[in-house]
């Protein structure tokens, strides 16, 4: 049986390495082609998905991976959007605007985290709830920066002449480039060292600290990163929607982001994309079915999806991986009868064949 196990392992290894090489290439090609082939409205939808995929990704970092319930993510999107709108309308250099749209939310996030991370579980949730809830009236009060409840419009990112592209194509490229970069970096981060750190901070702080991880520090880190990514999504929001107002960061949207994250799949990179798609497409879908039943349909869809896939849409991919893995088996030295091992051998193989049946 040992032999059998090795071959299956080797096989899946080969497949994996093949995917590892071909996968990204394929993805890049697709991303390059997509904006060129689709009509304007589709491109705009994809761009919008990109915006919220990034927002969900941020939420995933702090909540999915680090396990700190955050109901405030939309606030950082809003903040990023406001910073962008303000910068653009005072025509600052766009690169500067982008950097600020990342750093200012990150900094605010850091401050909040320094305080919030002292609290545990649900308390953090409540402190983060405060962000959108206080953020909306605050935005109204700071009307000289935010345009009050009438909001700010800012149009930028039109296609430059040389590109020969339509605006929507150009913007989509920008979204894909920036969003793609954020996704790639985050993906790398949540593997290896920091993935393990966030995982253990989520599950067991005592163990974390016993191996030299300061839970507080990494909670703050996760929260700050989430805010930064939120800021990026805010920048993209402004690029695509070109308007922001206090309603942008209303509490309800924060809740919907949370739902989108779980629907897509918590602690999953692919899940973040799926979550973004969910956030954008479901309202459009319900509008197709019956605009007057939005809430009813949205609720139904959410419940059905989770009922079928409690692990979120991303789990569609996962079980295959798990099911296929052949089960290594502990063969202790024969204590009683030598025959025991041979028995155990067959014993381990039976489920093997079984498993082929239902992966």
């Amino acid at each position, binding site marked *: 049986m040992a032999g059998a196990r090795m071959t299956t392992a080797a096989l899946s290894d080969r497949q994996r390495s093949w995917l590892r090489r071909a996968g990204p290439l394929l993805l890049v090609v697709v991303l390059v082609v997509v904006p060129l082939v689709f009509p*304007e*409205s589709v491109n*705009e*939808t994809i761009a*919008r998905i990109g915006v919220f995929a990034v927002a969900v990704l941020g939420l995933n970092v702090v909540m999915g991976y680090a396990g700190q319930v955050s109901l405030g993510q939309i606030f950082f999107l809003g903040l990023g959007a406001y910073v962008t709108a303000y910068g653009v309308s005072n025509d600052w250099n766009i690169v500067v605007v982008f950097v600020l749209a990342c750093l200012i939310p990150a900094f605010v996030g850091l401050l909040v985290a320094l305080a919030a991370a002292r609290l545990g579980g649900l308390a953090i949730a409540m402190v983060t709830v405060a962000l959108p*809830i206080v953020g*909306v*009236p605050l935005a*109204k009060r700071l009307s000289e920066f935010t345009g*009050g*409840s*009438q*909001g700010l*419009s800012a*149009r930028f990112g039109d296609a430059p002449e040389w590109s020969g592209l*339509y*605006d*929507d194509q150009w913007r989509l490229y920008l979204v894909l480039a920036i969003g793609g970069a954020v996704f790639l970096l985050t993906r790398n981060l949540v593997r290896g060292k920091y993935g393990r750190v966030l995982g253990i901070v989520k599950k067991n702080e005592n163990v974390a600290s016993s191996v030299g991880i300061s839970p507080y520090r990494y909670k703050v880190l996760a929260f700050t990163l989430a805010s930064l990514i939120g800021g990026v999504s805010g920048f993209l*929001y402004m690029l695509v*929607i*070109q*308007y*922001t*107002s*206090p*309603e*942008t960061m*209303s509490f*309800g*949207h924060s809740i919907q982001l949370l739902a989108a994250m779980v629907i897509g799949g918590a602690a999953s990179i692919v899940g973040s994309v799926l979550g973004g798609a969910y956030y*954008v497409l479901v*309202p*459009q879908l*319900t*509008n197709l079915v019956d*605009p*007057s039943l*939005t*809430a009813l349909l949205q609720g139904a869809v959410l419940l059905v999806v989770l009922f079928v896939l409690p692990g979120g849409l991303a789990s569609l991919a996962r079980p295959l991986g798990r099911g296929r893995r052949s089960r290594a088996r502990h063969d202790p030295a024969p204590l009683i009868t030598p025959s025991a091992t041979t028995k155990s051998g067959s014993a381990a193989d039976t489920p093997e064949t079984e498993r082929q049946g239902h992966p």
Partner: protein
Amino acid sequence: SREGGGDGATGAAASPGITDTTVRLGISTPLSGSTAGPGTCTVAGVKAYFGAKNAAGGVAFGDGKTRTVEIEALDDGYDPQRAKANYDSLKDDVFAMTAGLGTPTNRAWREAAIADEVPQVLVMTGDPLFSDTQESPWQLGFVPIYQNEGEAFGKLLVASGAPHKVAILSQNDDYGAGYVEGFKSAVEGAANIEIVDELTYEATDTSVDAQITQLSASGADVIFNAMSLVPLVVSALQKAQQLNWLPSWFLPSNTSSPGAVVEPGGGAAFPGIYSVSFAKAPASPAFAGDEDVQTYLAALKEHGDYPDAPAFPHCQWSWMVGATLEQAFTTMTEPTRDDFMRALRSIENFEAPLMLPGTAVTTTESGQPAVPTVVVQKYNGKGYDTVESLG
């Protein structure tokens, strides 16, 4: 938009959304969430109006063709982002966007509409920006800008000559601010008016008891109450009675419905409940026999799939929007968005159905929405009567 100029520019060639037999109109408005009530009305009215027209064969356009009018209404849940999405998905197959409720949700795609040269007209926001022809060539607001409503009541107050102490409670957004601004501009420098206290509340608050308590202490005999949320207005009226503070009360046009607000609030207890309006209130016995109202209510049931009695004035307003659009259609000589805007902007003193005497649709003056004027009304225990003076 990829069309860049938009094919409206090329003249005779028909714009998207219009054929020789049909024209499609788009609406993005809140049909879910906290503003779903009025939002639903903004659709029901237009639907009812053109539903009835279509049933009667359609609308006769200025170019001699008769077209049926199709309405494509989408829900934006008062979310700017979704409003923009709705616009994006509609702009290429509707002739014009109209009747949508909400300031941020309309602002979210205003610039895009200008860039794409898509009409965004007769929208339900008192935000002056939409009535500024320079800033917003492709826009036109319908309802009086908030300032006008506040101003009208202010004028009345000043005219009364008697000294008044005024307390102000307004919603903390452009809506409340607009009302207050208008009111203040009217009472500016008037000797007999003193504003003794001014407070705000958030649209998300569950109660304004504290505000009313604080204002009651100000000894005001008039409260200028710019609130857009029915429940809060009701509880405000009730609270004031409990504190037995009984000032004359001003309510905005969209939260003064006799049935939904004043009666439950026990409005009869106050010396006077004033509001501004330009539409006949179906609930008011004064108009019980009015055949405008009759046809309207019938159509609302039959074509607007809105069975109950309209709970928000927005239903009446969007009915008028329908009428105003028709008015524009009849003078439209080319099936283009440009010509439509021209036609729409050249309406004068059009007395749309349900309009109160003394009000009319006039689209020719810049800086003003389609309905520039309102009349002040006083609650009479069942409905409202127009009044020239206080008391």
